[in-house]
């Protein structure tokens, strides 16, 4: 009998590391996302019991996949409509054969016919089928592949939890009804899905970089997953500038990981971070990539973001940052990616070039536009600008507004401190 605490840890570990791989293999048998998800969930529940009795298996992923697949087969057998559904179930792999041979085999993990070497990447490319709306692609990927909770996904997309739930349900229904295949059949399909895949990896990274809720600022496992997938994608598609751009962006942003929160877990602003602690090797690698790609052709969204991030990182101090150059890059970025979030970030550099008053006008324009209502960084940036123009009382109000929208503990602590400073200036 294995120690219950050790089993619990092993199951939690396997959930974090292997969820996507187990799900991807199960989906291929089930041909039904809900059935696959339920079966994988049950397999993890079984592991808690089973591993306590027989010990933790050498290969948890194989054990979980075999168990989940058995659940799928049981469910299909129970299904009275099996006969009528059989034609749907039989795909390129022979489903009947799978039913007879439910054990996990090496062939399941490594199908030479696949255009992609990794189950998780494969599942993301499937979720990014162009027949699904862009937001649905990303939401579904975050949920299925990365196991991000629906409230956190809703936050990332600035929509309500119920709206996000409905969106994911709708996407699953379309996959089932229109029969979107659970495999990417050829490498020719990869480029047309790339834009969606890059967006998913970026979103996964940002979700981990600043956790939408919870106690700690960073969710390291999400950041690491995103870095890993970006690296694999780079090996797979070395000629795609945006793939390089995204990888560079993640490198630069993650190079500051150690300094973004203090020892007490509290948020440290960019201007107050200890630059000597930044990962210089990662920054240098990113710089080389960015310079190489900028020479190669007109930059896309990720490359421009990477270039902006690296200008921040390369400056010897916050005050010595090349603000005019950053503002010019933001103007380019706004052209290729006209998003209100980009416009808001541009306002921060505008304040450094043209003064807080000009930036404040821009932020107020975005506020009236309404698309960023519910986005905590708008009132937070507005508060900072108001504070810099001496409007302390209004700054406190804006910080309060940001506080009411923030759900991450580190960010809330930072905002509470700002409210106190501005409501009762010393």
């Amino acid at each position: 009998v294995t120690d219950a605490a050790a089993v619990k840890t092993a199951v939690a570990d396997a959930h974090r590391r292997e969820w996507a791989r187990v799900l991807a293999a199960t989906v291929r048998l089930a041909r039904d996302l809900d059935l696959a998800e339920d079966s994988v969930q049950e397999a993890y529940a079984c592991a808690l019991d089973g591993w306590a009795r027989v010990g933790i298996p050498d290969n948890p992923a194989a054990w979980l996949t075999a168990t989940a697949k058995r659940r799928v087969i049981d469910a299909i057998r129970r299904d009275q409509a099996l006969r009528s559904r059989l034609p749907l179930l039989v795909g390129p792999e022979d489903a009947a054969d799978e039913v007879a041979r439910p054990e996990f085999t090496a062939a399941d993990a490594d199908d030479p016919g696949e255009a992609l070497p990794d189950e998780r990447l494969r599942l993301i490319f499937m979720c990014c089928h162009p027949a699904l709306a862009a937001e649905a692609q990303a939401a579904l990927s975050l949920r299925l592949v990365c196991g991000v909770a629906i409230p956190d996904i809703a936050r990332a997309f600035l929509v309500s939890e119920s709206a996000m739930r409905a969106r994911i349900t709708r996407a699953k229904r379309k996959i089932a009804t229109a029969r979107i295949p659970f495999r990417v059949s050829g490498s020719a399909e990869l480029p047309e899905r790339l834009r969606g895949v890059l967006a998913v990896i970026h979103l996964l990274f940002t979700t981990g970089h600043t956790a939408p809720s919870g106690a700690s600022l960073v969710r390291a496992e999400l950041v690491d997953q995103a870095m890993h997938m970006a690296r694999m994608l780079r090996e797979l598609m070395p000629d795609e500038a945006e793939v390089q751009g995204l990888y560079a962006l993640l490198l630069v942003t993650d190079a500051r990981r150690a300094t973004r929160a203090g020892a007490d877990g509290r948020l440290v602003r960019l201007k107050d971070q200890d630059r000597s602690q930044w990962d210089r090797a990662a920054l240098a690698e990113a710089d080389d990539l960015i310079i190489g790609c900028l020479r190669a052709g007109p930059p896309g969204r990720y490359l421009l973001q990477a270039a902006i991030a690296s200008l921040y990182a390369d400056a010897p101090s916050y005050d010595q940052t090349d603000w005019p150059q950053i503002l010019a890059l933001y103007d380019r970025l706004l052209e290729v990616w006209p998003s209100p979030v980009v416009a808001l970030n541009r306002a921060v550099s505008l304040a450094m070039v043209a003064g807080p008053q000009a930036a404040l006008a821009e932020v107020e324009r975005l506020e009236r536009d309404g698309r960023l209502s519910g986005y905590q960084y708008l009132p937070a940036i507005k508060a900072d600008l108001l504070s810099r123009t001496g409007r302390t009382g209004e700054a406190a109000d804006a910080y309060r507004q940001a506080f009411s929208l923030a759900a991450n503990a580190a960010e809330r602590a930072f905002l509470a401190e700002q409210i106190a400073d501005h409501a009762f200036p010393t």
Partner: protein
Amino acid sequence: MARYAVLIYAHDSAHAPDATPQDTESCDRHSDELVQDGSMVVAYALTPRDMATSIRGDTITDGPFLDSKEVVAGFYVIEAPDLDGALAIARLNPVVREGGGVEVRPVHSGFVKGEEDIAG
């Protein structure tokens, strides 16, 4: 007899993957009537707009081709002596009284697998 296609426009199709017989009752009853009186040639009910995928140029998108209040919920081909006859049949479609409508188009030619040429 000439052949006319009838395109059904509605806010959405009642034929969802999990639709109950009650949900599709009025459409199904009308379809049965046309089959019985011999005017129905071929008929298709389509799944709701959420299941649609459109292609324009190189771009594939989620959703119906036209971004409008109504979508094509289904279509069928009827036989009628002339347009007035076709309109008389088409106006009986329950969708006309349920906030949608129909479009009647003379058929030029066509093909159904396993059948003769079904040209009008």
